[in-house]
Structures are given as structure tokens and as C-alpha cells.
């Protein structure tokens, strides 16, 4: 479904991605783990067109989407719940979700997605008219994921959805990610919480300072002593 081939990204002189290649197949949960500054978020920014690739290609369902503007990429069926949530603070929960469906025009369709998102996140339904900036961290995270689902993406990109959440909320968010996946959305998940990510993922890539250091199916990576030592706390 998604194929990244030898991707290089620079921020001025900083070489953030040094020729990474990875693949996500339809129906999978793939996780991209790695320490702070490894280039995980940059990978998602390049996929969504927020940063330019200096070389390499990104293809989605056979189409070359490298360096297309973000709005075209959303239209093709890729959607990102960004690191740090980035909700629109002064807009209501409902307006935030409406914006998530910006690329959709069919009203019945939009109403149906609203229902689906409210069923996944009943908390959001209770706060429809509340300004997003006044939600708790966990609620904002739900809003960010819900908003990303509103465009009915074929591929959902999640950047550290568990960041800053209490342990019980982390469990809830991971449960929800699994249900979204079961409902038929392909997922590329970035996590600091590598244990949790590997437990729900089919396959995984480990990123170290802009390069893919390891890759393979999630269960065997979770057993790999090198990875246990570096990322899973021993």
C-alpha cells in the first residue's frame, strides 16, 4: 500500500533521514520505533507532504506521491494524527471533527463518519460544543485521532498517540487503535512506548539517527536481545 524507497530529508544542514526504505501493506499495523530525534516524525511529515524529500520516492497504492502538497495527499486517503495533537484550540470538538472531513462532500457520508467516531470516542460526543483547547490531554488525543479518521483514510498515521497520558488512558488508546485496525484501516504507528507498540503491531522498523537499524515482524523484534536492551528496558 505504502512504499518508501531510499528517502532523504534535510532540515537545512541537518540530514534527518539518510536513505530510509520501508513498506506498509494493506490491513497491517506497522510500528516505527526509535529514540528521540531518530527521525520518526520526519518520516511521517515526508509522507504527508509537510516536509520536502530531497531524494527518494514515496508511493501510495502505486502512485508516486513524493513532494505532493499535503491537501492532495489527504485526498488520496492518507491522514495523520500529529505529534502533540495540534487540535484547533479555539474551535469546538464538532468543528475540529468537521475539519477532519474537509475533503468529503457527501453529507450522509459525513454524518456516518461522525457516528463512527463518536462511537469509538463517546467522550467526544459529550463535549461536542466544548472548545478543543479546554479538553484534557487524553481527550485532545482522542480528538486528534478522531479528526484524522474523519477523512476516512485508507492509511492512518499515528505519531506518539500515548505521549503524556496516564497508564490507564494509554491502555485505552492502544485498545482503540486495535479496533480501528479491525474496522479495516491500515495503520503506521510511531511510539516511544515500544513495548506496547510491538504488542499490537504486525511488523516493526527501528530507526536510529535517520537510518533503519532493524526491521522484521513485531513478535521476533520484541524477543531480539539487542532491541530489548536498547528500547524495551532490558
Amino acid at each position, binding site marked *: 500500500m505504502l512504499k518508501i524507497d531510499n528517502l532523504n530529508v534535510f532540515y537545512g544542514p541537518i540530514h534527518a533521514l539518510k536513505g530510509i526504505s520501508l513498506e506498509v501493506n494493506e490491513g497491517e499495523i506497522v510500528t516505527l520505533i526509535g529514540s528521540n530525534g531518530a527521525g520518526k516524525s520526519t518520516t511521517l511529515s515526508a509522507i504527508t507532504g509537510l516536509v520536502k524529500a530531497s531524494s527518494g520516492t514515496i508511493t501510495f497504492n502505486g502512485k508516486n506521491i513524493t513532494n505532493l502538497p*499535503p*491537501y492532495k495527499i489527504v485526498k488520496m486517503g492518507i491522514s495523520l494524527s500529529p505529534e502533540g495533537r495540534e487540535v484547533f484550540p479555539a*474551535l469546538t470538538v464538532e468543528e475540529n471533527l468537521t*475539519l477532519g472531513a*474537509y475533503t468529503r462532500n457527501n453529507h450522509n457520508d459525513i454524518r456516518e463518519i461522525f457516528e463512527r467516531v463518536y462511537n469509538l470516542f463517546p467522550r467526544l460526543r459529550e463535549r461536542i460544543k466544548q472548545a478543543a483547547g479546554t479538553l484534557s490531554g487524553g481527550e485532545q488525543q482522542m480528538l486528534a485521532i478522531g479528526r484524522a479518521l474523519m477523512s476516512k483514510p485508507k492509511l492512518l498515521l499515528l505519531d506518539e498517540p500515548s505521549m503524556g497520558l496516564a497508564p490507564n488512558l494509554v491502555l485505552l488508546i492502544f485498545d482503540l487503535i486495535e479496533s480501528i485496525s479491525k474496522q479495516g484501516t491500515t495503520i503506521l504507528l510511531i511510539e516511544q512506548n515500544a513495548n506496547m507498540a510491538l504488542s499490537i503491531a504486525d511488523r516493526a522498523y527501528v530507526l536510529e539517527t535517520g537510518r533503519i537499524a532493524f526491521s522484521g515482524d513485531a513478535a521476533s523484534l520484541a524477543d531480539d536481545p539487542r532491541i530489548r536492551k536498547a528500547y524495551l528496558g532490558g
Partner: protein
Amino acid sequence: MHALIGTLINGIALGMAYALIAVGYSMVFGILRLINFAHGAMYAFGAYMVYFFVSLKLGLLPAIMLSILMSGILALLIDKVALEPLRKKKSIPIATLITTVGMSFIIQNFLSIEYIFTSEKKGFPSLNLFGSFTVGNVTIQSSQLIMFVVALILLAILTLLVNKTKIGLAMRATEQNVKAANLMGINVNFIISFTFFLGGATAAIAGALISGYYQVISPTMGSLIGLKAFSAAVVGGIGILYGSVVGGLVVGVAECLAAQYLGSNVRDPMAFVILIIILIIKPTGLFGKKGISKV
């Protein structure tokens, strides 16, 4: 007493037209955190286009329509040609600012071109289309009424557009977080162009209204009024539409009162006196919120 009421009516009519210019500053500021110093020149351009098309015997209303369209397109082009490339290069905000100042002089100069316009003042068709009428012992010019009603309707339409339509929601989203707006599938460059178009179009309408009221235009007519309207936008809290309306009214009424009771040479400084007083009392303007920075 009726002198006071007459002055108030005059101030309110003028203030609504100021508000129409002020919202242009406010909308562009909201999206780009940029003060568009070419906006006053756009107002003059709008008035000159009406004058030009009227001189071609097109009739006042068609001339105004064409002027609105051309001014909107000019504003959009200014952004595309001069400002968007600067944003792409992530240049410092001050570079964009001085570019808009430069643009304002280029437009002003165009309006004083020999053989077409010249730098002389010109007569402008009167907006006093239905004469004047008297209520009690207060006389109201129909030009005042037209200015008030047209500005009111336009401001209401703008408010509805921003608050109730899909493109308005996209404008508000872009205002708050450009990156997230991109991720929603919003074509942010289109939203910015659209905002500039609206700014140019409303400036042209204000240009037609105020010129029709005073019945005179000159190439530099936009500079003082532009600064007054900018003050009005800041007084109300820049970036907030209804703030611009209140700011416009405050400035319009204050300067008419000042001219009536303190002498006509006190009229023009009033906008700035109010600006200074309001900003000392409330640095974000009357309705402004904290946390809006950048240039």
C-alpha cells in the same frame, strides 16, 4: 441637541465604512500575522477603478462591480507575486512588511500616472442618490444612509461567511494552526488567496462609498484613511472581526465629535489618540485575546 445627533449619525455612517476597511487588515492579519500596508492603497485603487469605469460611461453600479472584482484580483496578485515567495523562503516577517509598504507606493504611483489619471484631485460621482430627508429636526443625507446600510450588510455577510460556511471554517482553522490545516486537506494557499481577495474587494467597496460621500478622489487618499482603519482594527483587537466593527465606529464617531466641538483640525489625530489611550488601558485592544504575537 440636533447638532449632536447629526454629528453622531455622520460619525456612525463614516465609522461603518472605516470598519469595512478595518476588517481587511484584520482578516489578513488573522491568517498571516501580517499587517498589509498596501491595504490603504487598495482602497484608493478601488475608488479609482470606479472613477475609470464611470468615465467609460458604464454606469455607477457596473463600475463598482468591476472595481470590486479588479481590486480583489489585484490584492490576490500582490500576495502571489510578492508575498507568497517570501513565505516560501521563510524570510523574516519584517521583509514581508516592508514589501507591503513598497506595494502601497507602487499602487499610489500607478494612480497618478499621466494621461490616464494624473496626480490631480478628481471629482467622484455622488452617492447622495436620493437627496436628503428630515426626521424631527435632524437632516440625514441619503449618502450617509447608503454608506451605513451597504457597510452593515457587507459586514453581516462577511461574519456569516467566516462563521457559518465551510470556507470560513477553513479560514479559522488556517488562522489557528497552518500545519494542522494542511493535514485536514485544506489548500492553505487557496485560503490565503481568498482572504486577500476579500480584503481587496471590501477595500474597493469602502473606496466607492467614502469617495461617493466626499465626492473627491486623489492618489494618496488611501494613506491616512488606511492608517485610521488600521488603528480601528487594533483598537477593536486585530484579528477579531466584530472588534474591527466596534473600532471603526469608535474612530468614526470620535473624529466627527472632535471636528464638531474641538475644531476641524482635531479630526484626523483622533483615531490615533484613541488608539494610544485604548492600548495603554488594554494592550490587546477592546476585544483582543492574549497570545497573538509575530509581526
